[in-house]
């Protein structure tokens, strides 16, 4: 019953976010700040993870090709498919749920605990619009992060494959180009936009409606991460079935 009430509260929160917008001159600054914090600030970790994930996929594929009849360009092909379809959008989003999600929950939760949200409300500010809307808009830039994650992931696969002696560069690039379906990129970007909205809103919900003190801020961050990950995984399944099934 609690879960149903929470889901209801979540959708009510989403509706409130779009009511009584904050003055544009202030909102513009908030959006730019959130782009810097949430998107630009995550580039380093995303690039790092993507590079090594791509490399590991490439090595794992190479090591599992034991049949000499299987062409070596499969390494590039498998790396491309894995990175574009799953690792860049989904795995990266799980990482972002931890990094960005916990930041969102703890920052909003701390404002709740220290009555800063009450202060906004008393001033007549729509605190949900002020706090959550800029995060949603900033996270709409998330597909750019995913595009970089795809590029770096494939580059990591090429680096590991070629310099690890598992494949020639020509074979790898041939595999990358083999049976390329452009819709897979669209599918990946559609997923990343949906995941971006989940990453922006579920941690905001847990921070905004938290009760208690500093300890509860930590607990809310953990809960937000768990629920964001669970929802991402479920939505990933549903979108895959709908778009590729």
């Amino acid at each position: 019953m609690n879960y149903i009430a929470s889901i209801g509260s979540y959708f009510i929160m989403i509706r409130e976010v779009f009511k009584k917008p904050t003055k544009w001159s202030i909102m513009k600054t908030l959006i730019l700040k959130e782009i810097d914090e949430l998107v630009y600030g995550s580039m380093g970790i995303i690039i790092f993870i993507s590079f090594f994930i791509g490399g590991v996929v490439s090595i794992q594929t190479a090591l599992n090709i034991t049949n000499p009849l299987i062409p070596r360009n499969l390494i590039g092909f498998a790396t491309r498919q894995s990175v574009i379809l799953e690792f860049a959008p989904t795995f990266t989003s799980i990482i972002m749920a931890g990094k960005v999600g916990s930041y969102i929950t703890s920052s909003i939760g701390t404002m709740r605990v220290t009555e800063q949200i009450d202060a906004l409300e008393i001033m007549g500010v729509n605190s949900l619009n002020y706090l959550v809307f800029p995060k949603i808009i900033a996270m709409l830039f998330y597909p750019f992060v995913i595009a970089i994650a795809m590029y770096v992931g494939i580059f990591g696969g090429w680096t590991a494959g070629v310099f690890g002696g598992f494949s020639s560069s020509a074979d790898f690039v041939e595999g990358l180009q083999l049976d390329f379906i452009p819709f897979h990129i669209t599918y990946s970007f559609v997923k990343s936009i949906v995941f971006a909205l989940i990453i922006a809103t579920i941690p905001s919900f847990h921070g905004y409606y938290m009760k208690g003190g500093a300890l509860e801020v930590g607990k809310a961050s953990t809960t937000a991460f768990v629920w964001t990950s669970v929802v991402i995984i479920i939505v990933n399944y549903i979108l895959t079935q709908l778009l590729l099934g």
Partner: protein
Amino acid sequence: MIEVDNIHKSFGESHVLKGISSNFEKGKTNLIIGQSGSGKTVFLKCLLGLFTPDEGTISYDGKIYSELSASEQRNLRQEMGMVFQGSALFDSMTVQGNVMFPLGMFTKQSKSEMQDRVDFVLKRVNLVDAHNKFPSEISGGMQKRVAIARAIVMNPKYLFCDEPNSGLDPKTAILIDNLIHEITQEYDITTVINTHDMNSVMEIGEKIIFLKNGLKEWEGSNKEIFKTENEAVTDFVYSSELFKKVRQMYIEERN
């Protein structure tokens, strides 16, 4: 003037406010006192519109809050200033940013006009060198002053303070009390203060409401509180030996 008529508020089984009626006059410092758990904070949050009473009405200069539309309620809130117990300053903004925030949000003033207004209110609360400091870099007393400056920067009609001098040393507490009292008279604001502090009661309590178990037990001024025979009030106000002696001396002097 704020008029409160028979407000009730419950949370589940707990009936916190059990029919409180009173009014808070313009240009006066009105104090709400009572033991912990007496319903003071819930009462204040009802006055602020953060809690909706289950029964009864609260009107601000004749406008009944519950009968206003959501946008009218938000507009009314812009006429309210609030000083929180923990100051509730935006910790990512400087002192100047905190005080300027309501101006930037709700007015069309130019940057220089806002700057002039911020300088004026910070000077009014005796804070002239803290513009670029963050809340974490200033003392509790200074944070309270910034909170007061932020609360009055929009020229509010109503000022609410939740234990404004808690956690402050006695001297700073008196300074904050006096500052609130002066500002109330200077700008003709309706001020409501929720407090435990007996110095505040004696110094600035032009009107005092004593709550006990969600009911208004007593109402009067700081002059009348010396003379009251209400046992609940005397037990609460004169709980320390010092205050008991002061009261005894006062009564002996009067006789």
